[in-house]
């Protein structure tokens, strides 16, 4: 596995296009992307081995001392002067809008030339092996219990190559990630679906972990078949790492994406330096903050990856920014400018977002709950950064009675309420830590990027329904 030969051959074309457009704009960057993905999937009746959702193209970003301009295209071959003229004409605004543009400071372009690489083991496996492993896992689950109606096993590796060029910079990065999934469709009185998800840049790790998880998936399916609805109420709750990550992501992560500060869409803008969580709470985000699905070397604005501490001992200390929002706010960009693809705009986005571990033991945390639930596995969540409401859905919960986990499963479990109340209710933080790199995150209802989140177990008090 090596950096895209196609993009490698486009370094000079990018530089020439930057030069041609620099006669019209004070700042020009070209981002080239070549993302190759594959999907291997098997269930009881069907299988697939094919390319997944990749991309290959370019996005040109320009700044004229006032507003930002972007143009997305598939190829930059040919006459650069003619292409520059075409791009400038395409991104021109109606003259009536000229007077309504923002005005910002000039963008900096510090010199740098660097090639970043993180190796994977993807080349050690061929199509037949990966599809064979999916078939083996699906068959194993189907054979284990006649109540398994179907079982899906899937492995999805993808490899990223990106080239970023400005007048003074030429950066490349090359890395990969893979996810593995098991899903059992199980019927015992009622139909349920039990899942297991893995993420790593080592297929060997994913395969080992999937193979070691089939019993766990079946056990979960059997318990979910007995699950009942939860009695709505306010409870003491222990979160697993997945739900901890969901809280970090939805409750606070979106609220510190600083393009929302620019638009006055985030309450957090007014809370920097204030207590927003319990004093035992610490939270980070950054492509360089953890090794997971969103661990790139530079963002889609060419800003190097950061490790940003968002909450320190309960106090909000910093947000996450892309180039455009940092420029408007007069701050330093934090390497969080991310795009759905080269066809879409860069926004301030989370990367690897997590709460830091504390000092409590999980067994002590469970023992401290008279009546409550331990919640597991993210289903979905929705942010509300302006008004700090939260909705997070867990796949299931296990009832805790008198400090002990019972056999009573509840599903699904929707957690909702006020973000500050939830974060200030954090009373115990475990000494364990896990970041889960299998998620996709939208901004509102679009602009999907891969993210991870996680952390330790938390003890919180929250409304469940």
């Amino acid at each position: 596995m090596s950096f895209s030969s196609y993009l490698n051959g486009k370094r000079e074309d990018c530089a020439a296009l930057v030069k041609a457009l620099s006669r019209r704009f004070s700042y020009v960057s070209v981002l080239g992307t070549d993302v190759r993905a594959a999907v291997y999937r098997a269930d009881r009746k069907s299988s697939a081995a094919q390319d997944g959702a990749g991309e290959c193209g370019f996005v040109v970003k320009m700044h004229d001392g006032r507003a930002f301009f972007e143009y997305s295209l598939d190829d930059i071959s040919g006459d650069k002067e003619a292409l520059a003229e075409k791009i400038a004409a395409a991104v021109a605004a109606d003259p009536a809008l000229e007077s309504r543009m923002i005005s910002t400071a000039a963008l900096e372009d510090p010199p740098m030339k660097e090639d970043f690489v993180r190796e994977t083991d993807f080349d050690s496996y061929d199509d037949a092996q990966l599809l064979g492993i999916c078939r083996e896992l699906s068959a194993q689950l189907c054979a284990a219990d006649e109540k398994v109606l179907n079982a899906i096993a899937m492995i999805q590796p993808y490899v990223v190559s990106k080239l970023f060029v400005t007048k003074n910079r030429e950066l490349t990065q090359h890395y990969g990630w893979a996810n593995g999934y098991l899903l059992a469709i199980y019927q015992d009185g009622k139909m349920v679906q039990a899942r297991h998800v893995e993420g790593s840049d080592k297929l060997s790790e994913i395969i080992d972990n999937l193979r070691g998880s089939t019993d766990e998936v079946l056990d979960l399916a059997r318990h979910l078949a007995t699950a009942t609805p939860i009695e709505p109420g306010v409870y003491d709750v222990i979160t697993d790492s997945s739900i901890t990550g969901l809280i970090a992501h939805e409750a606070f992560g979106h609220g510190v994406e600083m393009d929302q500060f620019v638009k006055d869409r985030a309450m957090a803008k007014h809370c920097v330096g204030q207590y927003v969580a319990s004093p035992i709470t610490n939270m980070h985000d950054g492509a360089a903050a953890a090794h997971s699905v969103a661990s790139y070397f530079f963002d889609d604005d060419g800003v190097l990856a950061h490790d940003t501490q968002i909450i320190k001992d309960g106090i909000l200390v910093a947000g996450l920014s892309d180039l455009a929002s940092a420029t408007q706010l007069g701050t330093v960009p934090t390497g969080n400018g991310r795009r759905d693809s080269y066809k879409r705009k860069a926004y301030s986005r989370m990367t690897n977002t997590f709460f830091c571990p504390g000092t409590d033991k999980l067994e002590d945390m469970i023992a401290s709950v008279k009546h409550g639930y331990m919640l597991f596995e993210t289903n979905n969540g929705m942010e509300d950064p302006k008004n700090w409401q939260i909705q997070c859905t867990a796949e299931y919960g296990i009832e805790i009675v008198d400090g002990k986990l019972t056999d009573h499963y509840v599903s699904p479990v929707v957690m909702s309420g006020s973000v500050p109340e939830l974060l200030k209710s954090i009373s115990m933080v475990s000494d364990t830590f896990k970041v889960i790199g299998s998620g996709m995150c939208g901004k509102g209802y679009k602009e999907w990027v891969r993210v991870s989140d996680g952390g330790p177990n938390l003890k919180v008090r929250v409304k469940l329904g």
Partner: protein
Amino acid sequence: MKTVIELLRDDPALSGWRVTEKATASYELFFVHRKLETVRATDTVSTGVTVYVDHDGKRGDSSFPVYRSMSEADVAAKIKSAVARARLVDNAPYELPAGGTLSAALPTDLDKEDPKMLAMRIADAVYAADDLPGGSINALEIFLYRDTVRVRNSRGVDKTQTVHRVMIEAIPTFTDDKQSVELYEDHRFTAFDPEKVTAEIAEKMREVRDRAAAQKPATPMKVNVVLRAKEIKELVGELAYDLNYGSVYTHANLHVIGDDLQENGTGDKLTVTMKAIVEGSENAAYFDEDGTELTDTRVLENGKVTAYFGSNRFGQYLGVEKPSGALRCCRVEPGTLTEEQLAAAPYVECVSLSGLQLDLYNDYIGGEIRLAYYFDGEKTVPVTGISMSGKLSAVLAGMRLSEKTEISGAYDGPAKLLMQDIAIL
């Protein structure tokens, strides 16, 4: 240089092929408050190729993208690799759709005007509603798209359809001396009516003002809850997804033909037709990604499952003579609920949810309510900070559907759905 089609036609290893090409041109404006922050344009083409290889009584397939950057040798290598992958895949045999040519555009008026001028007029229409004291539109994103999709296959399908569409994301905000609140709203259309856009945004401005005034009611309580078209669309979409050929073939479906989703029901019966076209919807289409001509299909009639729907391959697996194609719009027949009947008992009418939570397997419906109107039998007040939860089967059995209908994106059906005795916390 040989084209992709020529390379596929010349390859004796193939039992069939499909090429889907989507060309998209867009013009996009991003406003921060009333200032223009970013102007974007795109000109891209996505080409997807699927090869089919029959082997050992089975059919294998494999797909790959073709990028503009690829040479003839690159494409030939991708075909070879895909053939090898397809030989590993052993699915039950099926035929590709046969024959049929089409070149059509979905109805629109968005192609009559220069995109730059049109985008500015759309911005003006949105900001025309920004006249409420204390109100503002803190962010506005406008996306103008022209998508041209062409599907060709080895059995003679060659169909092209063009869709012009607009997506607006506007953030109505209200600020007073105590707080600042917002609602997230997106609007999608294929024909531009400035007065309609201004009226819709103005209504959202009034609603966000009400969110600022909203209070948390006394909870817990059990009360009737009204869903509007946007959420009804989600509910019906979830019920319909359970009935697609793929779900049925993989045994992931909960319901089968003949099942009554409203058994012993006392409310309005649910009749749902999956449709190719709902007027004004960006999801409207003449054919799907296989090139299958779309056929409207009634999947629920008076609460009972009457048919499945979906793509060609899984339709054939289920023995459907003429698969419906992957339908993306739906029509729900109106009910009998009048405004007078609605007002006969207290209810909470949801305006903005964090997202309707639906779980067919666990018989659950719920969600966090960001703004609702609570009618206590005499007066109506805005409420917030509450969540609802209920049993989906009970909701379906007792639900009432309004006489009045509304088109909301890909949904054409009752404007309101009344759920009885929902727990509010």
